[in-house]
C-alpha cells in the first residue's frame, strides 16, 4: 500500500508557513461575488411574510390584493388556513416581484387573520414553563456522602441566554431553473449535501440540482440546510419561470435563522483539604426555542470528577429552533463549570491555576493543559500580577485576571478531492467543499503545491460547487482535516504516477525521485533532475487525474485538542462597565497548515467570545413574544475598540505536528465567556452570575442582588 504522510519539518516549503489567503484580493476589492450578489438576467426579488405572533392559528389568508398588484409575479402561501404557528417570525407567505420594493408592498397587501394563542418565551423561568420536561439524570459514585464530608463547598446559580448567529450575509439563495434543472447560488456551509436536500423537497432528481457557493458571508453552524426559504425560493422561481433572489431581511435573520441554546444551572461543587475536587451536583436547564435542549455536558473538561450527579430539564419556548453554534454546547458547559471551579478556588484560598492543576488528572489531556497553563501564565505575567479577589470597593476601576480551559474534537470529515496533472505542468484540485472564511481554498492549494514542489500561484483550486467530488459540510471544525487529507492522498498518488513516467529519463527508480523547488530530481543528487514542466511533459498526451479520499490510509489527521485562555479586565464599579484589556489564548491543533490563517481563527474566536461575554443576547418580550432586539442596534456585536489586546500562542512543532491536522475553528470560542466572567469576579470580589456581563448585571451583583437572568 502506498504511503501517505506529511513531509518532515525540514522539508516543508509551504505547510506551516504564513501565505496570505488566496481570495484576499477579490474580497478586499469587492470583486468577490457572493450568493447575495448574483444578479442574473430577468431576476425577480422575493420577500417572505412572517407571523407577528409567538403562538397563533391562521384563521384566514387573503392574497388577492397582492396578486393583483402590478409587478407582482407569484404569491405563494406557505402556511394557510388552520395552520398553527409556534413562534413569531415563522413564514406564512412569499411574494416574487420585479423589485424588492414591489415585493414589500405586496407583503403589506396580504391579509392574514390570526387566532392568537398563549405563548411562553421566558427561557430562564423553568418553573413557569408550561412544557418543561426532564431531559436526563445521571449519578456516578456517591455525591451525597462526598458532599457531607467535603472540606469546602460552593453553590451557585448561573446562566447564559440564547444568542444569535448573526451571519452578516443573511440566509438565502438565488434560484434559477433551466427546464427541470435547478441552479442555486446558496449561502451555505454544505455545498455537497445541499443539492440532495433541495431535490427531495422539490421532487426532482438530485443530479439536476446544482449548488454554487464561491464565497459566502458567514455561517457559524447555522447554514447547513436549504431551509424553508430555500425551497420556497425555488418554488417561486419555478412558478415565475424566472430567477428568484430570496435573502432574509435582518430582523428575520436574527429571529429565525440561528440561535445558540441557553444554559442555566444550580451547581454545587466540593473539594477536599488538598484542593481536590470530590463532588459535583448540577441541576441544569435551558432552551433552544421550541425543541428545548438536550443535556449540557457537565462538569466540563473535568469530566472524570468522582461522585457527581447531573440533571437536566428542557424548556421549550415559543421561539424559533436553535441551530449548531460554533462549538455546540461547549461555551455554555465551559462557563457553568469554570465559574463554579473558580469560585471554589477562591473559597479554598487557592490561585485558580494552582487549583485546576491539582485536578488535571480528572481531564483527558493533563499534559497538554499543564504545558498550556505554564505558557499562558508566563504570557500574562500571572504569578506577578494575580491577586486574590478584590473585595475592597475602594476606587472606581478594578482590574482582574481570569482563566479557563476547553477541549474539542476536530477530526476531519469525509472528503473526496480530484487532483489533475496536465501535460503542460498545470496542476489543479477540484473539491466539493466550501470556504466559509476559514481559508479552505488556501490550505488546499498549500497542500497541493507542497506535494508537487511548486509555488502557491502555480496550482489551481476549484471548490464551492457540487459538480466537484463530495466533501463534507463545514461544521465541527472538521473541514481542515478532511480536505487536507483527501488532497494530500490524491496529490501523492498523482505525483507517483508522474514519477513513473519520469524515472526512465533520469535512469532511476520512481521511488528515488522527489519533487521540490519546481523540479523533479533524484533524492540526494539534485543534478540528476528536470524542471516540473519537463517532468509533466513525460506523462504523454492525456492528463493524469486521481481521486483522494478521507478517511483513508496513513496518519494524516487526528482529533482532540486543548486550550487555555486568560482574560485581563477592568471593571468600573460605579457604572458596571466591563472593559476587556487583554485576552491570551494558548491553543493546540496538531499540524498547522497555515500559521496566519490558524491564528486568525483563534483571534476570531476570542473576539466572538468577547461579544457573547459582554454584549450578545436574544431579548424576547414576554408580552408580545417577539424579540425586542432583532436588529444590530440593540443586538450588540463587539466592535473594533471593544476587544482589547489579543495574544495567541499556537502549540506547534515536535510533539504536536506528528498528530497530523486537527480542526481549529471552534475551540478558541469556548473559553472567553468563562475566562472573562472569572476575571470580573477577580476584579470586583463577587460573581456576576449571568452572561452577558452587562452593566446592570454587574451592578446587581455588586449590590448583593442576584438579579434577573
Amino acid at each position: 500500500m502506498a504511503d501517505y504522510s506529511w513531509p518532515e519539518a525540514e522539508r516543508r516549503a509551504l505547510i506551516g508557513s504564513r501565505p496570505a489567503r488566496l481570495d484576499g484580493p477579490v474580497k478586499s476589492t469587492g470583486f468577490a461575488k457572493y450568493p447575495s450578489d448574483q444578479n442574473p438576467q430577468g431576476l425577480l426579488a422575493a420577500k417572505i411574510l412572517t407571523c407577528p405572533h409567538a403562538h397563533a392559528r391562521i384563521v384566514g389568508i387573503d392574497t388577492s390584493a397582492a396578486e393583483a398588484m402590478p409587478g407582482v409575479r407569484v404569491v405563494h402561501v406557505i402556511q394557510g388556513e388552520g395552520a398553527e404557528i409556534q413562534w413569531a417570525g415563522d413564514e406564512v407567505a412569499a411574494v416574487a416581484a420585479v423589485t424588492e420594493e414591489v415585493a414589500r408592498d405586496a407583503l403589506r397587501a396580504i391579509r392574514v387573520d390570526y387566532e392568537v394563542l398563549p405563548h411562553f418565551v421566558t427561557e430562564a423561568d423553568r418553573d413557569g414553563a408550561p412544557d418543561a420536561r426532564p431531559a436526563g439524570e445521571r449519578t456516578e459514585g456517591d455525591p451525597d456522602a462526598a458532599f457531607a464530608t467535603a472540606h469546602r463547598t460552593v453553590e451557585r446559580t448561573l446562566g447564559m441566554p440564547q444568542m444569535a448567529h448573526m451571519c452578516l450575509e443573511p440566509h438565502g439563495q438565488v434560484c434559477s431553473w433551466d427546464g427541470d434543472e435547478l441552479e442555486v447560488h446558496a449561502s451555505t456551509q454544505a455545498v455537497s449535501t445541499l443539492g440532495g436536500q433541495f431535490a427531495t423537497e422539490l421532487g426532482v432528481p438530485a443530479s439536476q440540482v446544482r449548488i454554487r457557493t464561491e464565497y459566502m458571508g458567514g455561517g457559524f453552524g447555522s447554514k447547513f440546510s436549504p431551509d424553508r426559504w430555500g425551497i420556497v425560493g425555488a418554488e417561486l422561481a419555478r412558478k415565475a419561470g424566472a430567477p428568484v433572489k430570496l435573502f432574509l431581511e435582518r430582523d428575520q435573520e436574527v429571529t429565525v435563522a440561528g440561535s445558540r441554546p441557553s444554559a442555566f444551572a444550580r451547581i454545587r461543587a466540593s473539594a477536599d483539604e488538598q484542593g481536590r475536587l470530590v463532588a459535583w451536583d448540577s441541576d441544569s436547564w435551558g432552551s433552544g426555542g421550541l425543541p428545548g435542549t438536550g443535556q449540557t455536558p457537565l462538569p466540563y473538561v473535568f469530566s472524570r470528577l468522582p461522585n457527581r450527579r447531573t440533571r437536566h430539564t428542557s424548556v421549550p419556548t415559543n421561539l424559533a429552533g436553535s441551530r449548531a453554534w460554533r462549538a455546540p454546547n461547549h461555551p455554555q458547559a465551559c462557563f457553568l463549570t469554570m465559574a463554579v471551579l473558580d469560585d471554589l478556588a477562591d473559597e479554598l484560598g487557592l490561585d485558580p491555576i494552582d487549583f485546576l492543576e491539582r485536578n488535571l488528572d480528572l481531564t483527558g489531556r493533563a499534559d497538554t493543559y499543564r504545558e498550556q497553563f505554564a505558557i499562558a501564565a508566563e504570557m500574562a505575567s500571572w504569578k506577578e500580577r494575580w491577586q486574590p479577589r478584590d473585595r475592597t470597593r475602594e476606587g472606581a476601576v478594578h482590574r482582574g485576571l481570569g482563566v479557563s480551559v476547553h477541549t474539542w474534537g476536530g477530526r476531519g470529515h469525509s472528503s473526496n478531492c480530484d487532483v489533475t496533472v496536465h501535460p503542460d505542468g498545470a496542476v489543479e484540485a477540484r473539491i466539493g467543499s466550501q470556504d466559509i472564511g476559514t481559508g479552505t481554498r488556501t490550505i488546499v492549494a498549500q497542500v497541493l503545491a507542497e506535494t508537487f514542489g511548486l509555488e502557491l500561484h502555480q496550482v489551481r483550486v476549484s471548490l464551492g460547487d457540487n459538480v466537484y467530488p463530495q466533501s463534507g459540510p463545514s461544521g465541527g471544525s472538521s473541514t481542515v482535516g478532511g480536505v487536507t487529507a483527501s488532497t494530500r492522498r490524491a496529490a501523492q498518488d498523482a505525483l507517483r504516477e508522474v514519477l513513473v513516467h519520469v524515472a526512465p529519463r533520469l535512469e532511476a527508480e520512481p521511488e528515488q525521485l522527489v519533487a521540490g523547488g519546481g523540479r523533479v530530481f533524484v533524492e540526494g543528487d539534485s543534478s540528476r533532475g528536470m524542471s516540473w514542466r519537463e517532468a509533466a511533459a513525460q506523462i504523454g498526451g492525456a492528463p493524469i487525474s486521481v481521486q483522494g479520499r478521507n478517511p483513508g490510509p496513513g496518519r494524516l489527521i487526528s482529533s482532540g485538542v486543548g486550550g487555555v485562555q486568560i482574560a485581563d479586565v477592568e471593571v468600573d464599579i460605579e457604572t458596571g462597565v466591563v472593559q476587556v484589556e487583554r485576552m491570551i489564548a494558548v491553543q493546540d491543533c496538531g499540524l498547522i497548515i497555515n500559521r496566519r490563517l490558524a491564528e486568525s481563527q483563534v483571534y476570531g474566536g476570542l473576539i466572538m467570545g468577547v461579544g457573547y461575554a459582554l454584549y450578545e443576547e436574544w431579548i424576547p418580550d414576554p408580552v408580545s413574544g417577539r424579540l425586542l432586539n432583532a436588529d444590530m442596534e440593540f443586538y450588540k456585536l463587539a466592535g473594533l475598540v471593544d476587544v482589547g489586546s489579543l495574544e495567541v500562542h499556537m502549540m506547534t512543532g515536535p510533539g504536536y505536528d506528528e498528530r497530523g491536522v486537527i480542526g481549529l475553528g471552534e475551540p478558541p470560542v469556548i473559553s472567553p465567556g468563562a475566562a472573562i466572567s472569572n476575571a470580573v469576579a477577580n476584579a470586583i470580589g463577587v460573581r456576576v452570575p449571568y452572561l452577558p456581563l452587562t452593566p446592570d448585571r454587574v451592578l446587581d451583583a455588586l449590590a448583593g442582588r442576584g438579579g434577573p437572568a
Partner: protein
Amino acid sequence: MTDDAKRSGLSRRSFLRSGAAGALSGGLAAGLLTEEAAGAAADTDAPKTVGPGPVEIELEVNGVTRRLAVEPRVTLLDGLRDRLDVTGPKRVCDRGTCGACTVLEEGRPIYACSRLMIESAGRSVTTVEGLGSPDAMHDVQQAFVENDAQQCGYCTPGFVVATAALLARHPAPSEQEIEAGLGGNLCRCGTYKGIRAVVEGAGGGGVSGG
C-alpha cells in the same frame, strides 16, 4: 438591469459643472425639503415634489456616469446593488449600524443604506470596487490582504472604504480617531486584530503591510 451605463469621459469636476446635473441636484434638494422649510426659504423657489414613481437621475459611480430611473424610496445601497449591479457594498443591518454598505460620496464616507439614491443625484459615489481591483489594489486593500483582516469577507468592503477614508484624513490616527473612523463598522468573524494592524501600520502617511 435598467441602467444604460457608459463611460462619460468626463472628470468628476467637469461632471459636476455640467448644467444638467447641477439643475437636477438643486431640484431634488428643493423637492426633499419639508413644506415649512421650503416656504421659509423662499417664495419663488416653490417646493418641487418627486415620486412616488421612478425619477430619472444621473450620478457618477466609480468614475462612470450612470443614468437610471429610480423610485425616491430606493436607498443608495439598493440602487447600487439591484439597479446598477455594483455589489461591493453589502446589505447587512440595513439600518445604519454595521457599516457594511459604506461608500464614499464626494469623498466622504456614508452609509449607503441610510441615504436615498435620489439624494446622491449629481454626485460622485465611490464604492470599494472604485478604490482598486485585484490586479491593482489600493494600499488599504493590499494591507487588508497582508494582515489577514478578512475572513468571510462580507464586512470587508465597508471596512476597506471606512479605513481608506480614515487614513486619508488621519494618516497616523490616534485611538480616538480610530474609534470615530471605524467604530461604525462591525465584523462577525472577528477580524479586528488584522484591521487594527492595517490602521496602526499606517503611521507615517502610508499603509504598510505589517
